[in-house]
Every structure is written in structure tokens, then in C-alpha cells.
């Protein structure tokens, strides 16, 4: 069983505020889930071959590094979604 303090530590790393009730539930849920993961201890040892983690994407690759013009409406649409904005910019709170 992981402790309440551990849950709060993970929540802090996750930038998540949890209510007391949520913290209690997550303590139970996370403990059960992490317990379930112990099944992996029985898995055979595998040599990590990092080249095999993704599919062979020979046909893919990145695009040229060049400016692609987009309509102004796209930028407007994107900024329009911001909860707090000013003159076409996102507004944020101070860090400290």
C-alpha cells in the first residue's frame, strides 16, 4: 500500500490538485494497480534493442525545415480558445 504522502508527492509532480476524498481513493487505486504490475517481474529478461522500439519508418522522415504559410484565421482560431488573452497573445500569471 502506498502512503498518502506518496500520492500527494506524485500529484504534485503531476500538477494535479486532489481533494481529500480523491487522495484516499487514489491511494487504494494506485496500490492495486502497482501491485498488478508486479506480474512483470516474472517476464523473461529481454535485451533492449532500441532500433526495434518503433516501426521501421523508412518511408517517413521529417519535412524540410522551412516556413509554411498558414492563414491568419488559424492563428486567430487558436488564440480565441485561450481563457485569458490580450491583443492576440496568451496571458499568464507570474511564476512566483
Amino acid at each position, binding site marked *: 500500500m502506498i502512503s498518502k504522502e506518496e500520492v500527494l508527492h*506524485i500529484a504534485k509532480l*503531476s500538477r494535479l490538485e486532489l481533494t481529500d476524498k480523491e487522495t484516499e481513493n487514489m491511494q487504494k487505486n494506485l496500490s492495486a494497480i502497482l501491485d498488478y*504490475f508486479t506480474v512483470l517481474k516474472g*517476464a523473461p529478461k529481454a535485451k533492449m534493442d532500441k532500433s526495434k522500439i518503433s516501426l521501421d519508418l523508412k*518511408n517517413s*522522415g521529417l519535412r524540410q525545415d522551412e516556413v509554411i504559410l498558414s492563414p491568419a484565421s488559424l492563428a486567430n482560431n487558436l488564440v480565441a480558445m485561450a481563457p485569458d488573452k490580450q491583443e492576440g497573445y496568451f496571458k499568464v500569471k507570474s511564476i512566483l
Partner: protein
Amino acid sequence: MDLIDLTITQLHDGFKKNKFTSVQVTKAYLEQIKKNDNDIGAYLAVTEDFALNQAEKADKIIQAWQSDSEKGSELITEFPLLCGVPCAIKDNILVEGMQATAGSKMLENYIAPYDATVIKKLKADGAVILGKVNLDEFAMGVSTENSAFKVTKNPHDLTRVSGGSSGGAAAAVAAKEACFTLGSDTGGSIRLPASFCGVVGLNPTYGAVSRYGAIALASSLDQIGPITKNVQDTKIVFDAIKGKDSMDATSVEIPNKHKIRNSKFEIRNLKIGVPKEYFAKGIDPAVEKIIKDVIGKAKSAGAEIVEISLPNTKYAIATYYIIVPSEASANLARYDGIRYGYSEILNSKFEIRNLLDVYVKSRGAGFGPEPKRRILVGTHALSSGYYDAYYKKAQEVRQLITQDFTDAFKKVDVIFTPTSPIPAFKIGEKSSDPISMYLMDIYTCPLKLAGVPAISLPVGFVDKLPVGLQIIGNHFEEDKILTVASEIEKLVQ
């Protein structure tokens, strides 16, 4: 026969022969949604005006083709198969100007600023978009019970779940509230609801379909795919949406060598693998019998049935439920209460003093229980001191599971399994126990870790509840599994 009973091919044929118009078909679907969807709850938004507008445009294209073809010109190209066909889109795929909630309070008021690549393709073909359909929050779930808005009920039994996370997409097709839908599949989210609702659903090979404009859950697994009334329609929609896209660096063109000519295909030349691990404890005997019967029919039709082993299957759920939350915890970091989505930045009720307050309050109030659970599990699995035991270990086991499939496809052409160990369960039956929900992915998530494609196809009923057969193919062998599925569809009719 009603207009809403027709498949894509039948609608296309009807449009060509001027038997009915896209506006008529669209109105029939809108009527069905009005009549039916209060009970089912598949739709989160119905975009009636947009749909009728698109239908009128489609009718003009169709009429232009008709007048050209009456003139006897041989050179005119036929209008696309999806032209005028009404569909619905899972609400985690962006359609410009429409809501895209991902089933979350976090995105309740979010309006998509651009079209996903798959939507651009559907629009270019003249498909008609009826609206946005329900899902588990951020596609995390197997029942739509995790949706922040409502539970989508199973059209075959309203006391049961539709499956998830693309439950709205599967129920909409089953309840004739759309001719086809697009869903997304990370661990089974297209195939499981397709199985529960008795429709066809395809999870394409990783990379076969662009994910640009799909709200990300776990980027090494997410794929968009079709849910349809039959196998032929699945092929039509898949062909329309697949292909390389410069906006998704993981997308690729399906190599030509994987195309198969239907005239050469015969079921008696087929080797079907049946993994013994998928028929072990936990499977409902009634489901097992239906799947074994279908395998028997394939054998009678001349296919060779080969018992195979996928020995690392027992590690798949744990591996999957480490990798997905890890990737999700990173993907969901973008919901910061600043650029879009739910925010407490202007809430005067709390004392919001700095940036960190905006993050923790907005995320705490915007996310539901399952995203919170996965963000916590993922953050833990990636954190210093735990990374090796969880994330690194899971990546290693992922390779073993991938190797299982590589070895299997050296011996067989396709693999047959049940899509789900049980038919649709009761609403509320599993909602208090996350692990029992996770275990529903037992047959659908292992192949995702290997990135191979699979289809779920309805092959029978337990009482009145549909049972799906899952057909798994090797990378980019969608053509093969669709052709095999089409043969099986004939055998079980």
C-alpha cells in the same frame, strides 16, 4: 428497406441511379437520431445544418455526374464512394468549427480550430458529417462510463454498456444513427465496442492512418479507424482515410507488395493461427463456443487451422497499462489552463496567485477520475527511482510481445481470436474497480503493442448480445484481413 438500412455501396448505387438524394438520406438519419438517441445516447452533438448543407453540395456533385453520364461521355470520373454518405465522428477527432470535447469537462467548450487529416479526406470525398459521438474521457475506458457527459447504452440491451472507448461511434452504427463512423483505437477502443454492438471495426496498422487532429492519448499506440455495418464498407472507409501525411511523421504509405488481388484469394490456401493463451481461463464458455464454431466453419471451407502460442500474452495488460499512462501523463500535460480548455485562471473564488496555482487548480477541476488515475500512474512510472522498474521494464516486455507476433506470422497468415472474453456487461457492473475494466483489453491490447492491424467482425449472439471475432494480420496486411473477414462474413450469414 429503409434508407438508414443501406450500406455505403448500396447508397452509392442508389445515388448513381437517382433512386434517392443525399439530402433525403441525411434527413432519414437525422430523423432516426431524433427518434432514437434519447434512449441510446450516442451523440454529444448533432450538426444538422452543417450536415444538410454538405448533403446539398454532395447532391450537386452527383447530379453533375448524372447529367454528364447521360451525355454518354466515357471519360468522366465517377464521384467518390463516400460522396453523400452520412457519418459521425468520435469527439476526440477535430472537425473545424465543431466541438471536440474528448468526453472531458476539460474540453467542454473547446471548438476545433482546424480539420484533422482524416476529416479533410472525408470532406474532400463529399461525406456528410451528422455530428460528434460519445467516448470515455480522453478515450480512457472500455464502456463510455468514463465520459464526463453521459453513458452510451448498448442498442441490443439498454441496461448494458456499448463498450469503449468509441462506444458512441459503435452504438451510432448499430442503432442506424449513422451509416459509418470514425473511432480511435489505443488498446481496443474501436474493436471492443464494435464487438459489443455487433458492428465491424478496424484498427489499422500503426502508421497507416494519419493522427493529425486526433486528441492524443498514447502516441505510440493511437490509431484512427472505421466502424461500419459490414466488411466491404470498412474497406471503403479505410481506403479513403489511409496514407502518408506530412502533418504526422509516423504516418506511412502502405507498401504495394501488401495489396492482394481478390480473384487470387481462396480460403483453402489460408493458414489460420489460433493462440492457445486466448482460450484459457476467464473466457465466457458461450463466447468460446461461438468463436470455435466459426473457426470450424473456416476449416470446413478448407483453411488450415494451426494452434499457435503467444507466450508473453500474460504480461500484456500490465505492460500496456504502464506504457499508456506514461505516454498519457506527458500528452495530457498540455492541458494547463492557459492556451485552451478548462481554466481557473479567472476564477476569483480561489486565490490564484501564480502560474502553478493555475495549473493545479485547472487540472484538478477539469480532469475526471480516470485521466487523473492515469496521469498519476504514468507520472509515478516515469519518476526518478521507479523508471527502470516500470517504464523501462514495460518497454522490454513490449519487445517480447512484438516478437511473439513476429514468430507467429512466420507460421500463419492471420490469427483468429475472440475480441472480448465476455459480451457487453451491465452499466455500473465494473465501474468501481479500475483493474476489472483494464482486463477487458486482454485480447485487444497485446497486438497494439506490436503495432499490427486487427478487425472485429460480428459472428454470433449470446442470448441477444453480439459476439465479435477478431482477425489479426501482420503489419500493413489490412487488405488480407479485410478479404478474410469478408469470406468469414459470408460463412456466418
